[in-house]
């Protein structure tokens, strides 16, 4: 390869060096520039994505303009994608030949510098979004926190206690939620969703849609009298926050500690919306506060932000997808999240663990790995279910004294104080059976009991254990709309659908879009400690970006050759970034700051009078010719 490259026209020196990106490797480039008076450099090595910047730097230190450089991607374009070594070597030669021909056309360029918007958008108000927003706001940044639901809090707000320390979830979460509302640097928009994202790192323009809650947030004082006064005397509507285990009225507040403390009216069930003939006792009782507004409309707002933190969290696996576990069929089969609500003092049973028929369970079976570690559902381990199963086993035992069986495959307790918690729960007398539950069916005597059938793999025998209550430890899944959100923000997803990090080890909270970071379960299943660690990291990344004040952008923008432009305006509607305007009534003008270098206008211009840095016609044509002409 080296010999071949050395013989190409125009090449003064060709070298092979194992670790070109290392300091000595870069020094080699600088030395050769000095010794041989080089004026163009080509490196054929790994991905430009990782190292183009490194080598441009080296070229600059050698005294040349950094854009007198071109990099050939021998990794993804060649070595990693071919198995025929000889053919791959030939392809490498072709690529180098093309690069050598291209690089001679390179012209000196300067990176663009653009200033940065200081505000930050956080999407999702679970513990991840709350924590990131508070950190950023405390650092003096203005934060827009956009949450889809009527309240922030996410899943954590539904729990009673949290493993492994058994802290009361509300006790640690509520102060943070109220801090969000009270913070002068945070604008909280609930019942809101991002509709459109434009712009680029440092300068995003984001359109947010706020759905009507039919209650004016500024005027509602959270007295809840309207709920009392509602013409519905009984709560009749299944309540989503309690997963349908409780009921609410058409006017409601999701849970006592909801933030904002503002009621919501559900137009699907409110009589006024259905018939227009309600007595509107809610309006009467709200009196001179006038907080209820049946005519509230959806509101569209556009904000300018420098960075975005995505914290959209997860969804729990739908247990009905495993028909032989009987969820939805047998009333005493619950999901873990439902049981979280049953043990919660503000839940539908006031914190008592009661079955649907009002009985207290005397035997309970917990089934691990429902929708996790399974080819038929999700292949990955959901990471938190073992621990929350231990937590629920403890809470159920504590509250009911029931005999608790926990059916597991492996108990994964790898965090700080996790194994100790496992030990404690075992000591409390929870019975652990190592075996995946194969079947759940009614015990058959009409008392609502079901039989859990599994091999006890440690005993080597099949066991059939009748229980009053089953808890399905369902796994964590990407949100149903994760793919749509991914497209909206132009980031990636990994194969199971969670947002993809830029690097699994070294850039775990970065996405592939500069300036867009992520935290919490939208990136993959994790517990609250890990979620909060990530939100801190994402906030720090956003701060580092914004506090730098400016970003450097590739100088790959397009520009109009003034005299050549005929003023046909073909390019203007084609530009996806609205970067082209028509000036002096005669020609197109491209705003360098807005131009993202996509090249659409360059290709479309009928008179060839738009050119693009780093993609000049000569550069491209000579590169193609270099590729195609025989060696």
């Amino acid at each position, binding site marked *: 390869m080296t010999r071949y490259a050395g013989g190409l026209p125009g090449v003064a020196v060709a070298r092979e060096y194992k670790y070109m990106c290392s300091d000595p490797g870069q020094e080699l480039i600088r030395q050769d520039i000095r010794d041989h008076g080089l004026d163009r450099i080509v490196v054929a090595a790994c991905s430009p994505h990782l190292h183009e910047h490194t080598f441009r730097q080296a070229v600059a230190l050698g005294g040349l303009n950094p854009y007198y450089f071109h990099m050939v991607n021998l990794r993804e374009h060649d070595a990693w994608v071919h198995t025929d070594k000889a053919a791959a070597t030939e392809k490498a030669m072709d690529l180098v030949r093309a690069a050598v021909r291209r690089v001679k056309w390179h012209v000196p360029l300067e990176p663009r510098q653009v200033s940065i918007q200081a505000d930050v958008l956080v999407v999702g108000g679970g513990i991840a979004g709350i924590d990131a927003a508070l950190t950023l706001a405390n650092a003096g940044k203005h934060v827009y926190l956009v949450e889809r639901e009527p309240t922030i809090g996410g899943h954590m707000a539904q729990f009673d206690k949290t493993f492994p320390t058994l802290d009361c979830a509300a006790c640690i979460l509520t102060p943070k939620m109220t801090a969000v509302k009270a913070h002068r640097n945070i604008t909280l928009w609930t019942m809101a969703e991002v509709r459109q994202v434009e712009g680029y790192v440092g300068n995003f323009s984001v359109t947010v849609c706020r759905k009507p809650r039919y209650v004016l947030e500024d005027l509602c004082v959270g007295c809840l009298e309207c709920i009392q006064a509602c013409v519905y005397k009984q709560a009749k509507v299944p309540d989503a926050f309690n997963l349908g285990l409780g009921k609410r009225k058409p006017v409601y507040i999701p849970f006592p500690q909801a933030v904002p403390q503002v009621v919501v009216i559900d137009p699907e069930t409110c009589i006024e919306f259905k018939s227009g003939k309600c007595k509107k006792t809610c309006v009467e009782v709200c009196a001179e506060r006038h907080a209820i507004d049946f005519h509230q409309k959806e509101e569209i707002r556009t904000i300018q932000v420098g960075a975005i933190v995505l914290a959209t969290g997860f969804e729990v696996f739908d247990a009905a997808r495993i028909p*032989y576990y009987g969820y939805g069929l047998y009333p005493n089969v619950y999901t873990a999240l439902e049981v979280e609500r049953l043990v919660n003092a503000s839940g539908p049973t006031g914190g008592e663990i009661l079955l649907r028929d009002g009985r207290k369970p005397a035997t309970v079976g917990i089934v691990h790995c429902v929708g996790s570690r399974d080819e*038929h559902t999700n292949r990955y381990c959901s990471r938190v279910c073992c621990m929350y199963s231990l937590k629920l086993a403890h809470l159920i035992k504590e509250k009911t004294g029931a005999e608790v069986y926990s059916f597991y495959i492996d108990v994964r307790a790898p965090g700080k104080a996790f194994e100790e918690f496992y030990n404690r729960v075992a000591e409390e007398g929870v019975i652990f059976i190592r075996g995946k539950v194969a079947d759940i069916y009614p015990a058959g005597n009409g008392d609502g009991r079901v039989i859990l059938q599994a091999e006890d793999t440690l005993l080597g025998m*099949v066991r059939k254990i009748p229980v009053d209550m089953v808890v399905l430890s369902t796994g964590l899944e990407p949100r149903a709309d994760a793919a749509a959100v991914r497209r909206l923000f132009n980031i990636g997803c990994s194969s199971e659908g969670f947002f993809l990090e830029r690097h699994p080890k070294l850039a775990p909270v970065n996405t592939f879009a500069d300036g867009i970071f992520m935290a919490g379960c939208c990136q993959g299943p994790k517990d609250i400690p890990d979620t909060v660690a990530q939100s801190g990291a994402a906030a720090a990344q956003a701060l580092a970006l914004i506090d730098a004040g400016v970003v450097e952008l590739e100088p790959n923008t397009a520009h109009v050759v003034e005299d050549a432009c005929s003023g046909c305006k073909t390019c203007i509607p084609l530009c996806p970034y609205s970067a082209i305007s028509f000036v002096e009534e005669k020609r197109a003008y491209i705003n360098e700051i807005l131009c993202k270098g996509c090249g659409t206008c360059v290709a479309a211009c009928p008179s060839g009078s738009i050119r693009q840095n780093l993609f000049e016609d000569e550069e491209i044509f000579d590169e193609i010719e270099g590729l195609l002409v025989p060696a």
Partner: protein
Amino acid sequence: MSACSVTLETLPQHPEGKEILTCLQCGVCAGACPYGDVMEYPPRRMIAMMRAGMQEKVFTSDSLLSCVACYACMAKCPRGIRLTEILLPLMKEQTLAYLPELPAELQRALQNTLRYGNPMGEPSRKRAAWVKTAGVPIRSFAEDRRPADALWFVECYTSYYPRGQDNSRATARLFHRLGVDYAILGNEEKCAGECGRLTWEPGLFETLMDYNMAVFQKYQFNRVVTSCPHAHNAFKNRYPVLGFNWALEHVTPFLAKRLDGLNALLTRKLPYLVTYHDSCCLGRQNEFYEAPRQLLRAIPGVKLVEMVHNRVNSLCCGGGGGGMWLDTYFKAKGYERLSERRVREAVATGADILAVSCPYEISRFEDALKVLGYDKRMMVRDVTELLAEAMEE
């Protein structure tokens, strides 16, 4: 790589063999297995023992004799290990080879199949005798070799057993009224051999496969339609190595696709409460859960109820994997008869008809109902029989 050419020795080199390295030892196979509580080494332990180089011990136990090839373990294995498709039949071959002698009933069935092309030892020249009683014309390729759209592969129980013939007569009437362009092989047909394979005697299986393929090649048709889910299984999974590449359908889904035409024909009201038993090969193996139910629902007057175990969770009748000819053996070992377990669930639904789609089940369930004294309360009918009954002449 076709499953057919994998042997236990070469297994580790095949992707199918690598699968067992991923076994989690979670035991869901044993928990799902209808004989999981009596099997000495359920699949989980077999895999553990193989990984420890202790396969001899597995083969010298009779664990695999009680595998009824019902796919229950495979359907729930979280690693997707193709137990029923690959590992278990291979292990079963070995187990049978280690047995001092085959259980007599099984031995006889295999010998009969080799000699007469059917396990009951009926003369092959009488295979198509039922045709005369069908009441509709049935073309046989041997007599009229013009091409047909479908070759209807009738299979053994449906050719010889009186209650199996009911199914065939019903199918013939349905095909006739629907105007299906088909022909049968008549006396030229021999058992497709699926159970011959699963119960070892690969030699027997290959003989049948070669024979049937040679007959197929004599005639021209676009698809094979069969009444037997086990034959369907053999054609789908084993025959392709010999070049079987016709479209393949079981009668039940084949009819379900023609529901539009059928609806007009189903005019007689049948006031039955029906529960449907998902056969293992048709259900778990091919996921035809809805087709038979759609057909039943199309019959005026029929109401469907489900058993506790249905669809992917259905309980096996105990006839697969050679179980058809091991009843005496299982009884001697004191095992519960699976067909009895199944009909108890069926009776508990309060239904008066137990509908099936596999010819094995008619005799197994009728027998179980009789043994348990439920034969006055419940009848077993093939879906096709019910459809034909609902057609006015």
